[in-house]
């Protein structure tokens, strides 16, 4: 008998165990694998992503927003923008989704032991950074100072509000929150200004420090300039790229930037690597 074929595109079934409405159009799901064998053995590294499916609608790729130190479940966070995320947004606790992964490379946090870490994120780009943040916080003694600079257009657009409050309270984390001018509310106690400007005010020292950055292209562009001004080299700055993906395994031909397949060779790169790439993202 020939062994059964391994179906590369067959997802695992996962149950939605918890739902968090982060903003009016952003939701987070806590997902648990239905197969106990997968639940017990599933492992990933921070920065890897998955392909999530709403049956009858299709698949979408997003990061795994939880930390690999938290076993037994994964979390995803997505904004409702298209057909698949629209269908996913309609699901509730107890409903079934599909998940394939983990795919791609990861943030090399083991190489960062003893270093300070600055997280820079904008809007819906906090989820991939959140995975790294919790991974580092769960191994707090391995790292030096931890600074988080997070901004969104408006107060309403800030995701993970409960966790922001928790990080705010912790004395081993320096959290700086900001909203774009005009996005504040009367109760807003954080900063008002764009992320790159606020980053320059916070002025983290580049010595023995790694910067992890994720955000919209315009934020990345100007934050890179700010980090350069502060003395960071391109090798010290890490980011995670996004491109449309369907297969997640380097076959379907969509996510490539020149000859680099983001899904397989990425999505995590240093700023130095990103600068060497063709302008195709």
């Amino acid at each position, binding site marked *: 008998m020939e062994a059964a074929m391994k179906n590369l595109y067959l*997802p695992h079934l996962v149950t939605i165990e918890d739902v968090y409405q982060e903003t009016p159009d952003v939701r987070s799901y806590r997902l648990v694998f239905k197969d106990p064998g997968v639940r017990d053995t599933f492992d990933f590294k921070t920065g890897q992503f998955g392909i999530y499916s709403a049956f009858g*609608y299709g698949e979408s790729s997003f990061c795994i927003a939880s930390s690999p130190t938290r076993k037994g479940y994964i979390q995803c966070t997505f904004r409702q923008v298209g057909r698949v995320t629209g269908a996913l947004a309609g699901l509730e606790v107890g409903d079934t989704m599909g998940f394939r992964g983990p795919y791609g490379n990861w943030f090399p946090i083991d190489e960062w032991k003893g270093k300070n870490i600055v997280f820079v994120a904008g809007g819906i780009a906090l989820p991939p950074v959140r995975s790294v943040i919790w991974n580092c916080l769960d191994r707090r003694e391995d790292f030096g100072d931890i600074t988080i600079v997070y901004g969104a257009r408006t107060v309403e657009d800030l995701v993970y509000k409960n966790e922001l409050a928790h990080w705010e309270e912790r004395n081993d984390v320096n959290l700086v929150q900001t909203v774009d001018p005009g996005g504040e509310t009367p109760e807003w106690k954080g900063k008002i200004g764009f992320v790159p400007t606020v980053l320059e005010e916070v002025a983290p020292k580049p010595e023995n420090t790694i910067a992890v950055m994720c955000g919209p292209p315009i934020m990345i562009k100007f934050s890179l300039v700010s980090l350069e001004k502060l003395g960071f080299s391109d090798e010290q700055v890490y980011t995670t790229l996004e491109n449309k993906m369907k297969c997640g395994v380097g076959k379907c031909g969509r996510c490539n930037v020149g000859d680099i397949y983001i899904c397989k060779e990425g999505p995590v790169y240093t700023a130095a690597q990103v600068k060497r790439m063709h302008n195709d993202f």
Partner: protein
Amino acid sequence: MDKRLLKKANLGKLIEGVTAKGGVFVAPVREAGEVYYRPVTGAEEVVLDHILPKKPFKEFFFPQTEVIASFEGHKDQVELKGYESVIEETVIFAARPCEASSTASLRSVFTWDFVDEFYTNREDRAVVMGLACIRGDRACFCTSVELAPDTTEGSDILLKETVKGDFRAEAVTDKGKAFMERHKAVFEEGGTEAVETKKIFEPEKLDVDLKRISRWLSQKANYESPLWAELSRKCVGCGACTFSCVTCHCFDITDEGTYFEGERRKNWDACQFEFFTLHAAGHNPRDTQYKRWRNRFMCKFNFYPEKFSSKGCVGCGRCIRVCPVRLDITEVMTEISRTG
């Protein structure tokens, strides 16, 4: 057993020998004036007076659409069933040598790190019988991409038509040798070089240097060259070149049906389509046609050779023949080779 004679009169027996055991015998047939590779059951269906079939035979390894899973959603659970690719022996008869050589290219993409067994299962069970070309047209350019109309690359058995209309069969791979052994009743003695074969077609050779092209493409500054927009200006983005290309491998994964009952399918897709790389949030990294055309050209002459160590273009000329605006890839190759 390496060199044999397959008499044309015995082709029917060979077809029967393969199909009787549940195998699929694919050969060129004429349909509404065009020639296509189709499964056949008799020798009378096979045509050999054509230049090359309209679509490549890659669809027998990588179908235009295939089910990868099906699902049934209920109130509190989903039943999910994975599919497998059918693994009957598939014989591709009279494959054009240029396209036979492209199989290694598709394999390189479908097996790097992650293995797509939908593809490999079929290809592993296939016997490719290439037939050297005795005719061609002005769109043929295999000799300009380091191939030949009688190349053995990629074929398990290479056939050459004899002046009498029979086939001299040469086993190229062990798989081909074993196939000839299994069907030795039709692969007769007497396929030696002494048997005279028809004259091989010689396509016109272009003045191009593939190394120069690849080197020019590797240089980051040339990615922004105004040449791209100029050379691809007339492209309308129909994607016909990709659907007829032997090495194009792009696909989409989509759900059909509903949550209650549906299928997940892998369908051919094309990097020439505007929606191909469009993010749900509205950003599109390849937002104009020249960028999409540039991606396709780079895939053929830089990504495939440099990243996958295989051929991105085999010179079959299908993209030239089907292009509605006569955008000729050889003109772009010539221009870049001259510039590079």
